[in-house]
């Protein structure tokens, strides 16, 4: 089941929407849930881009092109599994029922954000309805953490799995090396999902490593690797489900390389026209994962143009409403700078917090209020 980039990635949905002999196990409702989640990811991207361009949020990260990876993977896991995501994975959370407004609280960094506005936008953290581990900026650090969490399941004899997702660039990080090695030795129930989207900011995958694709890197750790068409929801679903089955059966980790493409910039701060060849982008635009899935749904009788309009509008409204709510939510209080550093507030932080409130009282401050330090 080893395969390399030079061999063809595993694919289910052909460009005309047919699936050949593949037996689709997802129900109609699940398929629609997948599709509508993909539309919601796009709506979220669009809204955030506008919010960023109009200066209302500071930053966001486009997902265009990789929606199938996120959603196909999520659809193959249970809501009791543990996700260790990157900043380009929130479709997984949406699929499992996290509300867009929870995300928007983070995008605006307000008082209702799980992290109280301490993190940059797109650095989500959820515990409910799924465990979606707090996203970190340093690349690759979450991989060994996922392995540790998986080992905890293993020790307790629970049949949950961890899925950790990262980019092609992430495979060069330290965490990739330690994580795959430990997972291999421990036979930990963890799924490594490498979303090879062609670029790490401006570094093309071809310059990230001299290996024959990324799945093959599993060989170095005794971890089976598979290459999947990342723009194919059903192929993603199948690969992740097989990996999860293996993990639950005690057969250890799997490295999945999803071959996909970042159709936008790295982030709202990036100008990809400086380095992305036009023809390359054009080629991938023809393989849009939403369009491909649509073709399948249409064949299956689950999609019509009218439904598309309805769903797109619903997604847009949901996300827009979320943004409105989040924007109207008050900012975090000054005391949130000092809380959550430790479980208990130590004396020196209490003193620094009191001094900050005192200064705000004495010298005034735009948004600190004039109360006493409440912690």
């Amino acid at each position: 089941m080893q395969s390399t980039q030079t061999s063809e990635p595993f694919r289910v949905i052909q460009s005309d929407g047919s699936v050949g002999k593949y037996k689709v196990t997802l129900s109609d409702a699940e398929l629609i849930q997948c599709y509508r989640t993909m539309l919601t990811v796009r709506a979220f991207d669009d809204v955030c881009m506008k919010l960023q361009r109009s200066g209302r949020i500071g930053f966001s990260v486009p997902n265009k092109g990789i929606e199938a990876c996120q959603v196909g993977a999520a659809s193959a896991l249970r809501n009791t599994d543990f996700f260790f995501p990157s900043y380009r994975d929130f479709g997984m959370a949406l699929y499992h029922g996290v509300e867009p407004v929870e995300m928007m609280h983070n995008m605006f960094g307000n008082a209702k954000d799980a992290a109280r506005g301490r993190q940059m936008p797109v650095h989500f953290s959820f515990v409910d309805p799924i465990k979606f581990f707090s996203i970190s900026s340093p690349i690759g650090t979450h991989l060994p953490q996922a392995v540790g969490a998986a080992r905890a399941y293993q020790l307790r004899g629970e049949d949950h799995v961890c899925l950790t997702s990262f980019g092609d660039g992430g495979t060069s990080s330290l965490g990739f090396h330690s994580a795959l090695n430990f997972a291999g030795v421990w036979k930990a129930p963890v799924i490594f999902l490498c979303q090879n989207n062609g670029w790490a900011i401006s570094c093309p995958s071809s310059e990230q490593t001299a290996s024959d694709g990324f799945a093959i890197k599993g060989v170095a750790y005794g971890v089976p690797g598979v290459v999947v068409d990342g723009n194919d929801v059903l192929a993603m679903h199948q690969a992740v489900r097989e990996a999860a089955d293996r993990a639950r059966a005690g057969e250890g980790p799997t490295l999945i390389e999803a071959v996909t493409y970042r159709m936008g910039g790295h982030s709202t701060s990036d100008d990809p026209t400086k380095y992305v060849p036009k023809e390359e982008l054009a080629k991938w635009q023809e393989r849009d994962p939403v369009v491909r899935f649509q073709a399948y749904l249409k064949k299956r009788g689950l999609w019509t143009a009218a439904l598309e309009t309805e769903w797109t509008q619903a997604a847009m409204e949901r996300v827009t409403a979320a943004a409105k709510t989040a924007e109207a939510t008050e900012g975090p209080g000054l005391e949130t700078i000092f809380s959550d550093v430790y479980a208990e507030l130590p004396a020196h932080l209490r003193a620094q917090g009191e001094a900050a409130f005192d200064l705000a009282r004495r010298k005034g401050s735009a948004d600190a209020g004039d109360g006493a330090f409440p912690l």
Partner: protein
Amino acid sequence: MPILTLIQAVNDGLKVAMREDERVLVFGEDVGPKGGVFLATEGLTTEFGKQRCFDTPLSEDGIVGAAIGMAANGLRPVCEIQFQDFIFPAFDQIVSEAAKLRYRSGGQYTAPMVIRTPYGGGIRGGLYHSQSGEAYFTHTPGLKVVIPSTPHDAKGLLLASIADPDPVIFMEPKALYRHAKGEVPAGHYTVPLSTLRTVREGEHVTVFCYGSMVPVVEKAAAQAAEQGIECHIVDLRTLLPLDEQGVLEAARKTGRVVIVHEAPRFCGYGAEISAMIAENVIEYMEAPVRRVTGFDTPFPNTLEHHYLPDERRVLDAIEEVARF
């Protein structure tokens, strides 16, 4: 009460924790059948099995990273970094991840874990088996940093660290592993974190120290006493979060302060103690605040006895400050 060495007290502490709480597990390089290069983990695999005390591949990044994931998923990992000098491959996991996880998730995810590691000189370990890196960690909000100097404290602080809801860097003075001996209660007890230990009362000079420097300071103080200089010795024990009020009171008490540590002086931990004094109780100071520390060089091998603060150097500073 049994008399144990510091390393035996650590070993005992680990056993007590593992007996009491099955979420506790121990791992690292060579901690299994070999029992650790200093034998801190001797007998653990035999008593608790390979699931709860085991060796890992040679990757500190993997050890600490996995510990974070375990901690975030309901376990209480106590991992070992074989020498503090080898903690740097795990530095990103420690300062970017363990230290910041609670903050960045608003408490949704936390990392209650302990990283045990032997530190300091005195075993002819040269550049890479001798360093005292506490200041790298004490400058990192979100971490707790603990350094015992007696067998009693080693066990009590270790048990408190394992029970703590936040990540703790537990640095063990390897020079004292076999040299420090003392009474250690059997079974469970804790020494609360963030409390100072007054090693000796005295009214002339206050000396702040921790870990391996405590016995050195005690000897210097005994010599000073022969000249009529009575030292007030404070063992800081928990470097972060520090009992700052306790430090300031002890400084004010004598108005003369010496700070002793092995690590290089420049931006070392002693600088913080001194700065704290200069910021809060400078008007009570009757002499310069002196630091006796390792030099601002890498750690040498043959000449380590000159590098490490010894009684001579500490006494010299005590005399200077007392006579100022």
